[in-house]
């Protein structure tokens, strides 16, 4: 058997190993976690009322100026309740958190903030879920990391807990701070 032939015969095995590697990697992925299409893009253009005061209209300009979180939440979302304490903790440490009250009822939402505490600097009322569509929201809670210019740097889908904060948010925030300062 010539050497060339044995190389040729090894090709299918090599192909199989490559396939195996991709499949193995795929096993570790959670298919319900989708990457955001808006990473490194500015916030979508919107004009929406705040939750507290339906007469006050906010735009992306109101969310600029500092590194901040944009948290999509609703009272119908149990995971949002699970992360609420975490958000309050972050807010008390000085993290700026903006809220998007997503497909919710205003009264219930206000009641929730009254009873559980309000970690949000500002809450956008997105009862119709239209800002949600523009952000590519597919399930609350979602938490976006915004830089000072209002550009989306990261998105986390699901409960924001201590581990997610330490592993996914803090390093990026440090990087953003390093870049601007």
């Amino acid at each position, binding site marked *: 058997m010539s050497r060339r032939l044995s190389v*040729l015969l090894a090709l299918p095995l090599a192909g199989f190993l490559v396939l195996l590697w991709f499949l193995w990697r795929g096993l570790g992925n959670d298919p319900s976690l989708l990457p955001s*299409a*808006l990473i490194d893009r500015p916030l979508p253009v919107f004009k929406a009322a705040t939750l507290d005061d339906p007469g006050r209209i906010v735009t992306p300009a109101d969310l600029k100026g500092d590194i901040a979180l944009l948290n999509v939440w609703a009272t119908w979302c149990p995971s949002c309740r699970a992360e609420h304490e975490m958000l309050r903790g972050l807010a008390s440490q000085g993290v700026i958190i903006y809220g998007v009250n997503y497909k919710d009822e205003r009264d219930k939402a206000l009641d929730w903030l009254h009873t559980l505490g309000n970690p949000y600097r500002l809450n956008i009322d997105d009862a119709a879920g239209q800002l949600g*569509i*523009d952000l590519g929201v*597919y*399930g609350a809670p979602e938490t976006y990391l915004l830089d000072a210019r209002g550009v989306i740097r990261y998105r986390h889908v699901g409960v924001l807990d201590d581990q997610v904060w330490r592993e996914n948010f803090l390093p990026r925030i440090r990087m953003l701070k390093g870049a601007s300062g």
Partner: protein
Amino acid sequence: MNALLRRVRAWVSIPAVPALLKGGLRGMLILVLLMASPLFAAINAYEFKDPAQEQRFRHLIEELRCPKCQNQTIADSNAPLSQDLRQRVYTMLEEGRGDAEIIEFMVARYGDFITYRPPVKPATWLLWFGPFVLLAAVALGVGIWIRRRARQIPPELSAQERERLRLLLTGSGEESK
């Protein structure tokens, strides 16, 4: 199972359905026929200015995948998000936007995931062309193998072998002697 229940509930909430149920067997038959079309529930709420627009709507919502309930189109799914997305598709059609524009709009927000037709780009080359490359490689391999084998078989029988073959074919007793 929940999804099924929700669908059944959605059916019963359509005003015509309880009446059909009362109509007995014929009603049941019509109901079953209607249920055979999964689009019926989704399409029901919308009014189209012409059949062509309805056709485009049906086509678009079958092309788009629900990001929440994966493996369902937004036509199949009754998740609130799918309802919103269907509504948005409808509104965009009413505004006179093109099909490609609507798909682009969705991809810009939800990523390639939302379309069942992955775009051709370097990251998806393997997906699009891989099978053809594999087929060509296998065809090439088989071709080489066949030619190699053909070369290994001696093209002619020797004189001695020809003689033996003749004896075998004619069945003369020479061989057994």
